[in-house]
């Protein structure tokens, strides 16, 4: 009786263990995907911050220019003369756009990190369960 029960338990636990391990694998894959996304996001963010810095520098210089200064914009291979006011407005718009983009990226990064943390938690729990299973099996 006892032996049969323990055999039953072993069979049950081994199938359960397999399920758990499969789940763990899935979760780990999800986690690595999330981490990749976060890394990508970070790179984008870095690029945008650099652009923002450059734009702010340009804006500062444009502000310092006198009204009669000639300003050109490089479009493809040619320099096109631009009105200073127009250039100024363009740069401002660009800065606004980049700031908005940065904010969006921050939000997504936060979201992703939250997801990552919860995934990590679940993975930890799964690992603990697997360990307890194995310990129980070793005892039985």
């Amino acid at each position, binding site marked *: 009786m006892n032996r049969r029960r323990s055999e039953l*338990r072993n069979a*049950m*636990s081994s199938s*359960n263990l397999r399920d758990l391990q499969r*789940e763990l694998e899935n979760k780990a894959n999800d986690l690595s995907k999330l981490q990749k996304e976060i890394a990508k996001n970070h790179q984008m963010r870095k690029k945008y911050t650099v*652009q923002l810095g*450059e*734009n702010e*520098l*340009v804006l*500062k*210089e*444009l502000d*310092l*220019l006198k009204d009669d*200064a*000639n*300003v*050109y*914009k*490089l*479009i493809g291979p040619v*320099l096109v003369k*631009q009105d200073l006011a127009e*250039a100024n407005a363009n*740069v401002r718009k*660009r800065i606004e756009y980049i700031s908005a983009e940065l904010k969006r990226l921050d939000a997504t990064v936060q979201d992703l990190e939250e997801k990552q943390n919860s995934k990590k938690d*679940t993975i930890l*729990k799964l690992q603990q369960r697997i360990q*307890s299973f194995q310990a*129980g099996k070793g*005892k*039985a």
Partner: protein
Amino acid sequence: MDESTKKGSVTSLASLFPVEEAQRAAKRVEDTIADKQSELDRLRGFATDNNSLINLVHKLPEQLSHDIMVPFGKAAFFPGRLIHTNEFLVLLGEGYYAERTSKQTVEILQRRGKSLDSQVDSLEANIKDLEAEASFFNATASQVAEGLVEIREDYLEKDSNEGEFKSGHLQQEAPNLGNATADDGEYARMLAIMDELEKEELAAESGNHSDQNDESTGDFHDISYREHIDNKLQNSKDVHQSELLDQINNKIITADLPKKQNRKEDITDQLNFASLAVESRVKERENFVEYIDPSEKIPARSKERSVQATTASKTEVRHQTSQPSFDSRKAFTGSIIEHAENIKPTTRQQSSASSQDSGSQSSKPVSRFKMQRR
């Protein structure tokens, strides 16, 4: 084990931070430092370029024209002449250019140089922080490699009265906190039971694995349950066991008295929460007593009984002084004395007056039980 848990815990640093982990951490920080260093070098290069450009822009308008070699393609140059030496088209960034004079250009370049300098400063500070971190990691790694040990001790008040109490308290608690290796058998049994319960639970909720609330509360129950068990084990082992053993011995000495059956039950009742080992020992003794009993002759028994009653009562008294609040024992001695009184008041007086005297009455036949006892 107990010695170490009495006052604090000793953990080897290697178990907290494995050597490879520490080394890996140190390596990662050093890699970041290398990255930052190359970035810093790049920025410094920009700064020097900027400075030389400022110098050039300063010098260019000093003459109306310059004879130069104009690069043509990758490998060819042809002679040329630089005119309009005070007109510059300066790239502001993001594809914007502005026409500037030499002086204005120099101003722009200087502003750029300032921002570069601030960037260099921040980067240097960053590198310094990282270096401190790296040195910490390296130190940890080397300490781990040396097998350093972390000792944690709870702070205890130095009151002379409370010192003992607290240390005792700690001693009792220490096994509860950590691994109760002392009572492996019981513990293993409990664990097995809990495993069984857990498995049943899992089988029941095989559908919804991701119910985290349930899990966490389950864990909590397990833990509290375990602690409870530990406490019980602790109590039954440390406090009762030794007393019980003494008491059992005493009772067994006089166990050939008529009310044997009752007393046996008493003993087993009291043993309810002692460990199995003790019980088995008691059984052994009982068997022994039962084996002896029928062989005794009735006349010899009465005298013998009186002697034993005295010895038993003596030991009883000794014990009662040490542990005055034990009722079952009192009732027990009472029963013995009752029996002894049945025989003769004189013998009882004699024997109770001096146990040595009764012991020296060698002319009396001595029972096999007593002989064995000696």
